[in-house]
């Protein structure tokens, strides 16, 4: 009896609990309502996930590229998108904290000598011929680059993807990329030099506007902040990726799963189905390559010997090019000292030409040498990237040497201008006041005041010019090397003696290593120059935006997939590691110039100070209470800072 009672009690409890689902009693409606709400909530969650995925910019484009070209090509675009995010933040910082306050609250154009185009330059400020001085050497080197590209021998691949090309060709046949590019160059001298875009415009007044915005402090802190933010983001991404990679690649049943579970049964759209078929095929090909690599039988000793030989050859190459660069730079310094008028075109542009030629031929050479090594394609790509990276460090070295030389020149000029200034001021007074009395401030047209050369603006201009010329070079090689070549192969194939699509030149493959390195070095330039030209992050954002669309189009339209499609490594840690090295290398020159070179006396937010970082000392003295200054003084004791740095490391 007792047992029956306990069973009855349990049954009662069960019915009470699940009253609704049993379809009886008062709970039925509530249960039905609960089930309906759960379903709605699941649907809402799913829709929200879809929405979130749709919000990621360019996701569909990248997925399409991934399905046709494989994950390694797509990894370049994913990297590009990540860099775009970083640059947006940098742009936000510089625009919001530096350019906008000065534009809104600082003194307007024309009110001060540093903000006005001087009389001597007024005539040429809008002149198109300014471009020639800057443009000619770069344009001619561009031309040589274009020729070299055509001489570049590529692998022979089978054709594919021609149908979509005819529609694209019709729309691009009358494109003329040369003219607009030229106009851009002239902008960076002339009027925009005297605007918020460059360092020289900023006034050194301590606090501007009704908000008492500390302009010089903000400028300095923004510069430091952009570098700090970049470091943080890069290191954090590396750490995240390192965690993910611990999963390991050797899951069992790879092929079986690919075969039986890769088709998505919810697809109803023919275009989506096409993409899906392409991505399945590509994915199979990637796995097949992995399997073939695993199965390859190796003669260990021969392979090792060949690899050592290959590395030795590469080192010779790098050493040779390094010496050549050093030699050429020394010669150009000698020429500059003797005055450039005695020498012809080659001597004037020697450095640029040597750089371009090296940049064209050495990667090809590395490619040929790497055929000796017989690595898995992914590893071969990483070696190739590393070697070209070492080569481009030479480029960086010359650029920095050239820049430092120019800075020294400008500093000497500045000393002379200062002397002239005092003479000029004295001439203005012209005996109206006794020599030792203090003179009332003079009413002089700002354009007439003699100006010192502003080395910081010059540095900023150099970086902007480099970025723009680099961008234009990339786009022109893209259009000429990929697009025109595809047009040529496609249309002249009918009337040519040998089959253009199978033999030389055929369609191009997407050059992953070249593009990734271009992106990384470009970012290095931005980091170096952002302190002196606040407009640089803005230019870079525009450039990356345009690059994304242009390259997505070019890849789908003019490129064919690689013959051996390989899976990119699960994370992009390799690219990010290189980015970190470049970040570190590019902050060194900027920090060096901040710490050791005195700022110009008449331009920029730090003018008149002994060193740029004095602004921090000033802020501490004037703005913070006294005890804070003392605490900071103790804290900045070198011993403490050193141990702190060691701790962080």
């Amino acid at each position, binding site marked *: 009896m007792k047992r029956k009672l306990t069973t009855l009690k349990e049954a009662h409890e069960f019915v009470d609990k699940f009253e609704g689902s049993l379809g009886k009693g008062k709970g039925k409606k509530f249960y039905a309502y609960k089930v309906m709400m759960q379903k709605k909530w699941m649907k809402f969650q799913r829709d929200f996930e879809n929405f979130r995925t749709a919000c990621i910019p360019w996701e569909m484009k990248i997925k399409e590229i991934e399905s046709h070209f494989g994950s390694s090509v797509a990894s370049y675009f994913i990297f590009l998108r990540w860099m775009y995010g970083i640059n947006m933040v940098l742009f936000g910082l510089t625009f919001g904290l530096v350019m906008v306050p000065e534009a809104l609250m600082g003194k307007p154009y024309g009110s001060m000598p540093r903000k006005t185009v001087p009389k001597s330059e007024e005539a040429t400020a809008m002149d198109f011929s300014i471009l020639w001085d800057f443009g000619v050497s770069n344009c001619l080197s561009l031309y040589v680059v274009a020729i070299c590209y055509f001489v570049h021998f590529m692998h022979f691949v089978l054709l594919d993807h021609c149908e979509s090309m005819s529609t694209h060709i019709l729309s691009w046949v009358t494109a003329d990329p040369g003219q607009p590019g030229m106009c851009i160059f002239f902008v960076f001298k002339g009027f925009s030099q005297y605007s918020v875009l460059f360092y020289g415009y900023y006034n050194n007044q301590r606090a501007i506007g009704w908000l008492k915005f500390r302009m010089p402090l903000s400028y300095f802190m923004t510069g430091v902040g952009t570098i700090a933010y970049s470091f943080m983001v890069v290191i954090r991404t590396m750490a995240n990726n390192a965690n993910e990679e611990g999963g390991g690649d050797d899951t069992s049943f790879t*092929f079986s799963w690919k075969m*039986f579970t890769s088709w998505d049964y*919810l697809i109803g759209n023919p275009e989506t189905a096409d993409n899906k078929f392409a991505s399945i095929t590509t994915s199979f090909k990637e796995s097949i390559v992995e399997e073939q690599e695993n199965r390859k039988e190796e003669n260990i000793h021969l392979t090792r010997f060949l690899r050592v030989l290959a590395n030795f050859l590469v080192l010779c190459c790098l050493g040779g090019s390094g010496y050549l660069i050093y030699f050429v730079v020394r010669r150009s310094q000698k020429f500059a000292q003797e005055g450039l008028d005695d020498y012809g075109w080659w001597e004037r542009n020697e450095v640029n030409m040597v750089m371009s030629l090296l940049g064209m031929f050495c990667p090809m050479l590395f490619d040929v040498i790497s055929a000796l090594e017989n690595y898995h394609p992914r590893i071969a790509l990483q070696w190739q990237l590393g070697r070209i990276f070492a080569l481009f460090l030479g480029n960086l070295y010359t650029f920095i040497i050239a820049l430092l030389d120019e800075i020294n020149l400008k500093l000497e000029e500045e000393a002379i201008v200062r002397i002239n200034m005092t003479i000029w001021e004295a001439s203005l007074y012209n005996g109206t006041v006794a020599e030792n009395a203090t003179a009332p401030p003079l009413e002089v047209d700002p354009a007439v005041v003699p100006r010192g050369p502003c080395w910081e603006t010059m540095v900023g201009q150099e970086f902007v010019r480099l970025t723009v010329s680099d961008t234009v070079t990339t786009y022109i090689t893209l259009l000429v090397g990929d697009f025109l070549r595809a047009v040529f192969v496609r249309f002249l194939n009918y009337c040519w003696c040998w089959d253009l699509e199978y033999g030389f030149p055929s369609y191009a493959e997407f050059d992953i290593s070249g593009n990734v390195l271009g992106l990384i070095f470009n970012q290095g330039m931005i980091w170096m120059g952002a302190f002196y030209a606040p407009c640089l992050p803005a230019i870079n954002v525009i450039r990356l935006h345009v690059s994304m669309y242009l390259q997505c189009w070019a890849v789908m339209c003019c490129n064919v997939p690689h013959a051996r499609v390989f899976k990119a490594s699960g994370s992009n840690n390799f690219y990010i590691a290189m980015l970190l090295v470049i970040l570190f290398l590019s902050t060194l020159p900027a920090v060096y110039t901040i710490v050791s070179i005195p700022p110009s006396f008449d331009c920029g937010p730090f003018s008149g100070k002994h060193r740029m970082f004095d602004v921090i000392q000033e802020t501490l003295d004037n703005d913070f209470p006294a005890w804070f200054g003392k605490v900071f003084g103790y804290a900045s004791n070198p011993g403490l800072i050193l141990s702190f740095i060691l701790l962080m490391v």
Partner: protein
Amino acid sequence: MFLLVFCRLHSRYHELAPNLVPMDYTNDPDCKVPMQLIINMPELTENPFKERIVESFSEAGDGNLSFNDFVDMFSVLSEMAPRELKAIYAFKIYDFNTDNFICKSDLEQTLNKLTREELTPEEVNLVCEKVIEEADLDGDGKLAFADFENMISRAPDFLR
């Protein structure tokens, strides 16, 4: 709630062949919609395995579905179906020669349908060999249902 789904399914079934499918089932009529009409349904038309799917749900194996078969098919394909049931029907779908084993020729046909024959014969051969190597547990060179189920139950995304 189930009645609503049922009615909707029947209206879809009726749409396929309005003159063939009766609205009234009280006399338990025996009518089947031919395969051609079913594989043109928008849910199935892009699927590379559509013929196999329809064949494996039809009683006679010829692809013509009665309404019962039709309901069976969509209930297995829906999200609510249990995993084991899906595995049973998946095995049937991939077994092209209906011998209750997935042998190498079945695998080759599956692969060619999946990649629309873009892989070379050597590559196809390699993949099929790898699949048998990975999943075949009893070593007879073909996959029985037990092998298939063992493999598919470990798959991370076996949900259609």
